[in-house]
């Protein structure tokens, strides 16, 4: 029965073909073909997930002898359900949304091709299928973002996406070639078995194979998931239709987290690869969040928000919490997809009413009117710092008592604690009738979120990695020397506390009219508002190369 996985990418492909053949006769009704096919795909994916949950063992199903296989395993079927589900919603949404746009049939053909490519990517059982899907996603996305063929701007930014994706294709191709050269097979399960048997294999220039492949796969993931220096395409690709933005932010951009999970058997044999992944994720999440906060364009702000989230997802992989990254990408996908698809309704609603809730929270956050009367600061500081850590520790202790032995779990707990503390800190001076009621509600909802997050991630861990040894080995591969770990934690704590103090100090000075932005501060703001000039540097390099190409052609008389 699990052979049905072969049908998963086939259904949207058949739909694309049918739309192409019937577009002139059925006209706008072709969308129904696409909608039905995407519903069937979702149902099929759900059935396969059911099979996997009921205990069907992972299996490889082949079409060809050398390559052309699909893998039925928990990761592939879970991702297939997510992709086909989001794709179905996007299909339904697009039927009316795209009705007045030119190229209606073409849009649904591309949407189906994208769904097929994404499903092929998550279910690929060999490196050729993976490369094929990985590459085709970039190409189809280019044309989806350029759905409006009259718009040069749309194509300009679609090209940025295409080019970054192509940069991401190259390390994956290199990794595939190195793996094939080492083991003489394209099949992923066979490669992973070989690596487990002989993890010390070396490759080109005597480099360790697992480390090299781990870093190359990570590079491919960085390009796909908009990590720092390969991120410029993401905030600028809002020219495409809204359903494409939803699909891109909810599904396609998450591919980085997926590919790192797919190569988990390689990462357990690496020494430093996961540390680099953590570092890149950390830098991306910080820069993404800073840029998000400084944008005055809501769409770019959403783009940078996705960048920050992707950084966090990659960081989770870097600390060894692989299954948590999958949970994160699903949760973020649903959340961001809803934001994009709901944007039109929100704008429409806002035209009728400003819909501003005149409550305590709004008055406090938006109108910045804090309470005159304050609670004792020592009590509030104690609550702010103690409550999140107690909640996190209790919940984790209930789910998995040994979490203190995993450095990765502690790093994530630390981030959770900082977030929780900030949430409580912000209520300190809120003008409200009953502060204790508000604080209790916040603590209660915070606890629910933490319990949900922890429990679900634990369930994901059990489902995705039934071999209980695997997550432990991943945490071990992500671990660092204790002295380094403590130094890092102390440093980060110091930075955060300093940041809080600075914010508090500047807030107070500003309130009493004592501050004017300093020269350095304005310079920093200019740097951030120009997005660190990264896109400008790339444009400058591009222009330089094109100028060189032009001169070469002139010198060589165009032959």
């Amino acid at each position, binding site marked *: 029965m699990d052979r049905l996985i072969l049908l998963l990418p086939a259904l949207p492909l058949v739909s694309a073909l049918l739309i192409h053949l019937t577009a002139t006769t059925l006209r706008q009704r072709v969308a129904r073909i696409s909608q039905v096919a995407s519903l069937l795909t979702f149902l099929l994916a759900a059935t396969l997930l059911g099979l996997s949950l009921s205990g069907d063992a992972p299996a490889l199903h082949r079409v060809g002898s050398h390559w052309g296989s699909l893998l039925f395993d928990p990761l592939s079927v879970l991702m297939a359900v997510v992709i086909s589900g989001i794709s179905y919603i996007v299909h339904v949404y697009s039927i009316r949304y795209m009705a007045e746009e030119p190229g209606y049939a073409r849009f649904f053909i591309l949407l189906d091709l994208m769904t097929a490519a994404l499903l092929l990517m998550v279910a690929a059982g060999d490196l050729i299928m993976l490369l094929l899907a990985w590459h085709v996603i970039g190409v189809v996305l280019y044309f989806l973002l350029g759905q409006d063929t009259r718009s040069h701007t749309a194509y300009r930014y679609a090209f940025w996406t295409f080019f970054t994706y*192509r940069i991401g294709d190259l390390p994956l191709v290199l990794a595939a070639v190195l793996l094939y050269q080492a083991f003489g097979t394209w099949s992923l399960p066979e490669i992973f078995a070989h690596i487990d048997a002989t993890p010390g294999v070396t490759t080109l220039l005597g480099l360790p194979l697992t480390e090299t492949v781990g870093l190359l796969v990570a590079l491919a993931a960085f390009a796909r998931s908009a990590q720092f220096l390969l991120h410029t395409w993401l905030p600028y690709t809002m020219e495409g239709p809204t359903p494409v933005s939803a699909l891109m932010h909810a599904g396609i951009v998450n591919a980085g987290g997926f590919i790192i999970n797919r190569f988990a058997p390689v990462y357990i044999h690496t020494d430093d690869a996961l540390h680099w992944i953590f570092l890149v994720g950390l830098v991306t999440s910080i820069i993404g969040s800073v840029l998000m906060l400084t944008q005055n364009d809501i769409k770019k702000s959403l783009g940078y928000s996705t960048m920050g989230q992707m950084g966090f997802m990659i960081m989770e992989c870097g600390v060894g919490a692989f299954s948590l990254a999958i949970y994160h990408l699903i949760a973020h996908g649903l959340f961001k997809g809803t934001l994009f698809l709901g944007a039109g309704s929100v704008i429409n609603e806002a035209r009728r009413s400003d819909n501003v809730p005149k409550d305590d929270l709004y008055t406090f956050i938006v109108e910045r009117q804090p309470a005159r009367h304050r609670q004792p600061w020592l009590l509030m500081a104690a609550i702010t710092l103690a409550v999140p850590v107690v909640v996190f520790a209790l919940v984790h202790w209930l789910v998995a008592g040994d979490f203190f032995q995993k450095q990765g779990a502690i790093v994530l707990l630390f981030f959770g604690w900082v977030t929780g503390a900030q949430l409580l800190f912000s209520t300190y001076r809120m003008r409200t009738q009953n502060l204790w009621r508000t604080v209790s509600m916040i603590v209660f909802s915070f606890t629910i979120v933490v319990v949900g997050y922890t429990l679900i991630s634990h369930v994901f861990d059990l489902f995705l990695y039934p071999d209980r040894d695997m997550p432990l080995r991943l945490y071990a591969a992500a671990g660092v020397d204790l002295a380094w770990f403590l130094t890092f934690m102390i440093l980060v704590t110091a930075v955060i506390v300093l940041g809080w103090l600075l914010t508090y100090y500047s807030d107070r000075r500003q309130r009493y009219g004592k501050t004017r932005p300093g020269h350095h501060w304005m310079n920093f703001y200019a740097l951030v508002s120009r997005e660190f000039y990264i896109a400008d540097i790339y444009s400058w390099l591009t222009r330089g190369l094109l100028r060189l190409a032009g001169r070469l052609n002139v010198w060589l008389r165009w032959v």
Partner: protein
Amino acid sequence: MAAWSYLVVGLFLPLFPLSMVFNLLFARVSQPLARAVLLLAWPLTGLGLLHKLGADVPDPVLNWALATSALYAVRLLVLRELGTWTGFLATSLWALLWIPAHEGFELADIALDALGFSAPLVLLVLITVLLNRRLGGAYAGISGGLAASLPRLSVGLIICLLAAVATPPFPGFFSLLSVLMLASPVNMVGLLVVWLLWSWAAARLIQGFVVGARAADSSLQDISRPVSWGLAMAFTALLVTGVLLTGDLL
């Protein structure tokens, strides 16, 4: 192998500046059929000669070949005329065939890779003819907005360009993969960069032709349905033979 032999082979498996001979010839030959024959026969002649001479290819020649491929890939970025573009891409593609030749090769295998590179270029010649007939020339940027005025031909052009720059699952991709498997680490990276440049050049060309407002000339006739079906069949054949022959699926 004597130096003069490399000079002769370098005409057919392009080595700069000998590569200029092919491009000059390709520019002079305006007949589409002659161009197609040239595209198919030129690299095969080079491979045949190399095989007949039967000597090892030294490393400097290999580096020279990769540099030639990179040079033409860079120059491709700013080309606007589809015919010249096809010739430059062919030069960049065929120069890579020195890599399997360096490693010692079965003529049949490498000839298949050469055909995998050349076959989409033949279709590109056909598309150039179709564009010339309608627009009087095949210049990207000058005649933009073809997606609106000639939608079927635009689709043909896009698929053809993607196939020509070794996009999977077209045969060029598998040919490139088999060349990659034989390359040294440095050449591997160089080869991948060249591949990136091809994609960039193709995207620039697509944007120059396809994107923009509908052409002012309303008398433009798109390709007929039979021609469109013929192109579709050719692409399918290219795809299937690519996956089965150069891709070695079965």
